């Protein structure tokens, strides 16, 4: 390439004191000015601010810069900002190089001299790379005007409703037979004591009746391909064995079903039949049949329900189906599960029937629950006279691998203590907590009210639950009194924390989403991009991203929906121009690259007798150029020449610094 030498502008950001306190910013700028091709080097307090960006624009115009390097934060943070600034001054945005001296230098090192030295090396490397940058043209692709929402709890329902209301098609995917999620299992919500079903059910009906929403129950996401704006999602839908459009949920089939099985909706506290409706308000309002539990499969042994169904909507021969859906955006609203209390055998859950989880207790409180809302001991059906609640079971506990606070359990327990006092005013209610976290709107006031109702809150960490003379005994280290006490009681409720919903890891791998250390889905930025993910066009809503209560879930769902709507309304998305390119004169058509490409983007051209790149399919990973024995393949923006230049610049220091170091690079001397 016969081009005149590039004119590079280098800008070193102080980032207030974030960089400047560990890196001598002025020294780095002075050093940068001495590097080859550098026309100007400046330092500035906040490069990302308007005046900072103007500095770059002004220099591009006045000094005729052809490349720009900003040494500041991570490119994951502000690369788009500075690309925009460079573009605004008429330069191709890909002639900009970002040098990370904050996240990977000033913030992780202590010694100022060493950090400054490292920053200089990184700048030298960035300048070397910038010299070889080439302009690239952004490409644009159409956005499919449809959204897939995965998970139909309150988060998914809300997101689906908002997208549908904006006029776009929504596929709402739910793995269970009914939408509604965990909120459908709740009796009351804190702190307003709204009836959960009363506020959720209308939304469930709305979403199912919306002309823009297609409900896919008993369905899971199998595979996802494509990219922002045009994803292809393969959904596996299990057979319901009941025609949901015909079923009137009359229940005649269940009346004759001889099977009795634990009812999942009531967490096994009641039974259901093999053909069943998950709960009375289920949407779609149709029965479903569990083929493994049904006696009527092969050979046909029972079949009583077939005879009982007047509308003949039961079909034992229905098959699972798999279908592809084309969507522009995906909202992940897969929610959470509760912590498995069996993990902590010291609490006797599963051993003593009167040790319940908080979600089981919620079902006991519910009028639609196994006892019709009557709070009784599971062991003998008697009303408990003394009940103990235990906070932070499976939360804030490194031993079980859940270091995080589940955020909802304190208020959940306070609400349940209230419900208990409401139904059984004479019962003694004690709550053992580590810290009470009543941080939300109206939470502290509600906590006060429940204390005044006579619920005792004691600071202590229970260590063990055992049975003595027909009574449950909670051994607890009272951290305020500083002694171990034994509390005799009739019933214990374990305030179990929240964990990611089952299948989260498979979904993360299918979509290539990152997980945070708590195993919930990782947002793109913890403060400023809480609904975005590392994958453009995939958004998070609700507990899939981390434990949260209903209002926070709804707010995030609306945020995810609005991000998806904005994308769909824009109609076009920018596609990264970082793709592979093949020099057809060099390619020896060995086909090595063909087998390596995970996107089948490398295609043999029989007429030219060379490999070619389909640049729409290519995602720019760079697996092929690293394997090409003829070096015929170039990955744009990450060319071998650019990376070599970075390497040489990073290691160039050692050749000049000390004799001890230069002695061990004989190859340089031999070549000379």
């Amino acid at each position, binding site marked *: 390439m016969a081009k005149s030498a590039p004119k590079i502008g280098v800008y070193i950001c102080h980032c207030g004191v974030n960089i400047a306190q560990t890196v001598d910013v002025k020294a780095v700028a002075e050093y940068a000015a001495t590097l080859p091709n550098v026309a100007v080097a400046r330092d500035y307090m906040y490069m990302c601010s308007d005046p900072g960006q103007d500095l770059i624009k002004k220099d591009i115009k006045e000094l005729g810069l052809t490349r720009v390097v900003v040494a500041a934060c991570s490119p994951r943070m502000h690369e788009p900002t500075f690309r925009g600034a460079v573009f605004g001054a008429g330069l191709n945005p890909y002639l900009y190089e970002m040098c990370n001296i904050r996240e990977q230098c000033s913030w992780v090192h202590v010694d100022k001299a060493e950090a400054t030295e490292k920053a200089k090396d990184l700048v030298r490397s960035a300048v070397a790379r910038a010299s070889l940058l080439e302009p690239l043209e952004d490409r644009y692709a159409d956005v499919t005007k449809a959204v897939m929402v995965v998970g139909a709890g309150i988060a998914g329902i809300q997101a689906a409703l908002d997208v549908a209301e904006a006029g776009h098609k929504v596929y709402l995917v739910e793995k269970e037979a009914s939408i509604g999620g965990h909120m459908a299992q709740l009796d009351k919500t804190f702190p307003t004591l709204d009836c959960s079903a009363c506020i959720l059910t209308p939304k469930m009906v709305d979403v199912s009746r919306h002309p823009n929403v297609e409900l896919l129950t008993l369905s899971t996401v199998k595979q996802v391909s494509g990219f922002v704006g045009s994803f292809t999602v393969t959904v596996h839908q299990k057979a319901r064995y009941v025609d949901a459009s015909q079923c009137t949920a009359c229940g005649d089939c269940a009346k004759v079903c001889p099977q009795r099985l634990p009812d999942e909706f009531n967490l096994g506290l009641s039974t259901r039949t093999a053909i069943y409706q998950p709960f009375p308000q289920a949407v779609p309002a149709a029965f479903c049949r569990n083929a493994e539990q049904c006696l009527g499969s092969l050979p046909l042994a029972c079949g009583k329900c077939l005879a009982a169904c007047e509308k003949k909507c039961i079909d034992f021969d229905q098959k699972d189906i798999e279908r592809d859906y084309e969507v522009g955006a995906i909202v992940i609203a897969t929610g959470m599960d509760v912590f498995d209390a069996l993990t902590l055998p010291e609490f006797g859950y599963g051993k003593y029937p009167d040790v319940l989880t908080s979600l089981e207790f919620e079902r006991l409180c519910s009028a639609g629950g196994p006892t019709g809302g009557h709070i009784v001991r599971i062991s003998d059906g008697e009303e408990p006279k003394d009940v103990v609640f235990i906070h932070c079971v499976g939360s804030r506990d490194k031993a079980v691998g859940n270091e995080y606070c589940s955020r909802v359990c304190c208020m959940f327990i306070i609400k349940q203590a209230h419900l208990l006092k409401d139904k059984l005013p004479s019962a003694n209610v004690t709550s053992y907590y580590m810290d009470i976290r009543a941080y939300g709107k109206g939470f502290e006031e509600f906590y006060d009210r429940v204390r005044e109702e006579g619920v005792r809150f004691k600071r202590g960490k229970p260590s063990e639950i055992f049975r003595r003379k027909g009574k449950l005994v909670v051994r607890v280290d009272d951290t305020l009194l500083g002694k171990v006490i034994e509390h005799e009681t009739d019933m214990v409720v374990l305030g179990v924390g929240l964990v990611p919903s089952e299948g989260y890891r498979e979904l993360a791998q299918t979509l290539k989403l*990152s997980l945070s250390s708590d195993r919930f889905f990782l947002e793109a930025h913890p403060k400023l991009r809480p609904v975005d993910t590392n994958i453009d066009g995939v958004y998070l809503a609700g507990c899939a991203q981390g434990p949260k209560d209903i209002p926070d879930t709804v707010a995030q769902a609306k945020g995810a929906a609005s991000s998806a709507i904005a994308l769909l309304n824009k109609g076009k998305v920018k596609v990264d121009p970082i793709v592979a390119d093949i020099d057809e004169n060099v390619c020896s058509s060995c086909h090595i690259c063909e087998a390596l490409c995970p996107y089948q983007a490398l295609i043999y051209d029989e007429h030219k007798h060379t490999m070619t790149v389909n640049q729409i399919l290519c995602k720019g990973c760079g697996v092929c*150029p690293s394997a090409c024995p003829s070096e015929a393949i170039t990955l744009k923006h990450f060319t071998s020449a650019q990376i070599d230049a970075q390497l040489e610049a990073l290691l160039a220091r050692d050749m000049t610094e000390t004799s001890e170091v230069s002695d*061990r690079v004989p190859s340089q001397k031999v070549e000379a």
Partner: protein
Amino acid sequence: MADFNPTIIGFACNWCCYAGADLAGTSRMKYPPNLRLIRVMCSGRIDPQFILKAFKEGADGIFIGGCHPGDCHYVSGNYKAEKRIDLLKGLLAGLGIEPERLELHWVSASEGQIFADAVTAFTERIRAFGPLALTEPAGAY
């Protein structure tokens, strides 16, 4: 050898390890300043020639970070990196370079602590090895 300050070159994939390194920074975790990281989109982009070149030009150790198995943003680039590095390690031994001077580590975007710990341990390992002394002109590879 305690005052030996090794030169360490790193390659990190954009999606997992580089993001993990950023998180180490955001969380103000500390690690030795010897590492110089080069960002690539995928660990599958790391041509073994980059590694040989880095050793040739004076790197004492090379740290490579990619996504955990199954998590690769580009489906399988990390597996390709792993295979290439396994093969290359055999070659390094033949060139008189301790294979342990090359490390591949899986670091997810949320594993800032793991990144900081891995870099610290690797730096100390290379410090213990001492400077890489190539006796032959390595230009012949």
